[in-house]
């Protein structure tokens, strides 16, 4: 009996044991002998960002036999959750992209490794403003917590061809009166509208609204200080009377992709955006990203005829819990060499001594980018550069703001009621800035 039983069972049991053994054994066999793997979380998901990432990762992996970069691409909105999940699992990532709100949130949580010492002398190559603790978004308590790979400016892109056809000179959009007139003149439903709030996307709604709030003297959509209440309501009033009537009704269900399509098709004329617009649109819509059709302008600002350009950086952070800091630092140095940064398809290079000609020579867009970079060079010379102020918890604040703004758009609340709704919900949540 026993013999029969054993005979019937030994095959399946052995199969299971061998399979499990092979699966478990395979991991240490490969990782123990191979190069050190650096886990890199990137949020560069557009076509040109992805291409740039892949090129330099391949280059690095080819040039180093001891280190290998493993990239994971994730959307901005999931970045914190992903980083948290990796930390909770005991396998912290080594490097990740940051923008202003991410670096602030991670720094608040104590997750970041200061990169000063790891960078050594190379940090001196960065623009002084980026390293100035008063204006920088990467310096915390005098320590550099992130390595910028790009310097981003927020601006206004307008469809110059559509405005001209409506009898408006694009440069008049440097004042709020000019913006109001342009919105009115370029709105001819159902094929032409002035601007938008993509209400299905809280992050982008807050991003588009930022222009109005900064331009009316507030720190941002989160600036609900009682002392600023009148300015906040005035901004909402401007949005209600001048902006809402120029928006297509479909904005209620719009996301960012709809915004881009609307801008490209000429459905909307005024697009509060950033210096990344060229890299975003050029690969798919070069017919719109040219000097005839797109004009870049700084944001209008009450009492400042030059306008403002809120600036921030996007770059890399290294995590304190990383077990491969030495290797991660090698990757950071490689990724932030002037050579790789010159090829970055978007925004400005955060290093000193870079000219438009330098970028044209090596950038993937070549000559077609010259007018765009020149626009930016000129704007940065003439407008007032200011720091984009990050806030946390950005996801929840953006959502509260979007909900109130949408209610105002639907006529369910007045600007005063919208302010009350936003301020009462946002003030107890704000971890930074503390108002």
């Amino acid at each position, binding site marked *: *009996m026993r013999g*029969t*039983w054993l005979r*019937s*069972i030994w095959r*399946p*049991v052995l199969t*299971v044991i061998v*399979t*499990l053994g092979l699966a478990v054994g395979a991991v240490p066999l490969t990782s123990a002998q191979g190069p050190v793997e650096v886990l890199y979380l990137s949020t560069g998901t557009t076509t040109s960002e992805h291409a740039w990432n892949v090129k330099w990762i391949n280059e690095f992996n080819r040039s180093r036999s001891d280190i290998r970069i493993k990239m994971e691409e994730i959307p901005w*909105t*999931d970045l*914190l*959750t992903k980083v*948290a999940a990796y*930390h*909770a699992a005991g396998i912290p990532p080594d490097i990740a992209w940051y923008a202003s709100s991410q670096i602030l*949130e991670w720094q*608040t*949580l104590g*997750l970041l490794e200061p990169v000063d010492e790891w960078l050594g002398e190379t940090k001196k190559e960065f623009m002084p403003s980026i390293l100035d603790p008063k204006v920088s978004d990467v310096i915390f308590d005098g320590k550099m917590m992130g390595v910028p790979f790009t310097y981003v400016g927020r601006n206004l892109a307008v469809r110059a061809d559509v405005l001209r056809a409506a009898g408006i000179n694009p440069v008049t959009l440097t004042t709020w009166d000019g913006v109001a007139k342009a919105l009115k003149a370029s709105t001819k*439903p*159902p094929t032409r509208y002035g601007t938008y709030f993509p*209400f*299905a*996307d809280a992050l982008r709604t807050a991003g588009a609204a930022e222009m109005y709030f900064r331009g009316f003297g507030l720190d941002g959509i989160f600036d609900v200080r009682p002392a600023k209440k009148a300015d906040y309501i005035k901004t909402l009033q401007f949005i209600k009377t001048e902006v809402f009537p120029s928006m*297509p*009704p*479909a*904005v*209620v*269900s719009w*996301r960012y992709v*709809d915004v881009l*399509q*609307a801008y490209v098709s000429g*459905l909307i004329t005024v697009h509060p955006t950033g210096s990344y617009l060229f890299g975003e649109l050029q690969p798919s819509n070069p017919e719109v990203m040219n000097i005839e059709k797109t004009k870049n302008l700084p944001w209008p600002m009450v009492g400042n005829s030059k306008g403002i350009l809120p600036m921030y950086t996007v770059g890399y952070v290294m995590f304190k819990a990383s077990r491969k800091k030495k290797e991660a630092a090698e990757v950071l140095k490689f990724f932030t060499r002037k050579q790789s940064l010159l090829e970055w398809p978007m925004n400005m290079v955060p290093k000193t001594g870079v000219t438009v000609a330098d970028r044209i020579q090596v950038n993937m867009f070549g000559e077609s980018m010259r007018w765009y970079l020149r626009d930016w060079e000129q704007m940065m010379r003439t407008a007032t550069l200011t720091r984009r102020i990050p806030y*946390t*918890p950005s*996801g*929840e604040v953006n*959502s509260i703001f979007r*909900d109130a703004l*949408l*209610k105002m758009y*639907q006529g369910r609340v007045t600007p005063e009621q919208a302010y009350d709704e936003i301020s009462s919900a946002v003030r107890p949540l704000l*971890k930074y800035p503390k108002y």
Partner: protein
Amino acid sequence: MLAKARPAAPAVGRVRSRRQQDDLVGRLLLLPALGVLAVVVGYPFLRGIQWSFTDFYLLKGLTDWNFIGLGNYVKFFQDPKTPPFLLNSFKWVAASLALQFTLGLTLALLLNRPMRFRAVYRALVLIPWVTPTVVGALIWRWILHEQWGVVNLWLMRLGVVGEPIQWLSDSTLVWISLLVMAAWRFVPFWYVNILAGLQTIPREMYDAAAIDGAGRIGSFWHITLPFLRPVLGVLFLLETVWRANEFSTIWVMTEGGPAGATTTLAILTYQTGFLFHRIGYAASMGVSLTIMLSFFAWYYLRRVRMEA
């Protein structure tokens, strides 16, 4: 007889012992799968329950949380925003099931009849079911897009409407859009199961009923539906649970909008946990949904058993 029966006893014992061996082998072979399930389902489930009693908030700390008892549950059920979201979940599940059952049954009855190219039609109907949900939802989003969607384009070209219909921006129309998309995607599953059920009904039943003077409707009520009851029972149970947990369709189509009009409990849980990083509170929502669905399943199965 007795003399003949005696030698049979060891044979019965052998059969029993053989069965026990097979049973043991079967259990052993299940172990790896159970192990994987314990890791990827059991552990996260228990962890979720644990977190639902904590104030775990990612922006406070990745491992820094305190037990707060039933605090999250009390907050959830006292929040004035909760009833509308629960109502949305109920509306979504009830309307989806009603529409999908009706269409699935109709299709199955149609394609159960002899006709030319029946196999082709049967295969075509399954296409939405094999299309990934996200892909299907994105396609429908474009079809119904107010500005560039093909539905509005044709309605305007044909002069049916003068201006674009706000399929995804109007808080009533958005439900119709969602339900149509969900029906397109999930009706094939109903259809294929009901069709399988229909094919188990003996033809003689209908012949006998016809001889007794039963009409088509009478046969449907007294033969088809009773025979389909076990299949429909399983379908309603599974679909209720799946629709209540539905995330991809709603998220891709509307992200819970406009203004929370299509935010169901599943969407709210995702937003709270993954966008606002309030893990403890989101876990309590997920656990509440599980409890509600478990209660429903228990009640439903009990009714079915009692009726049987």
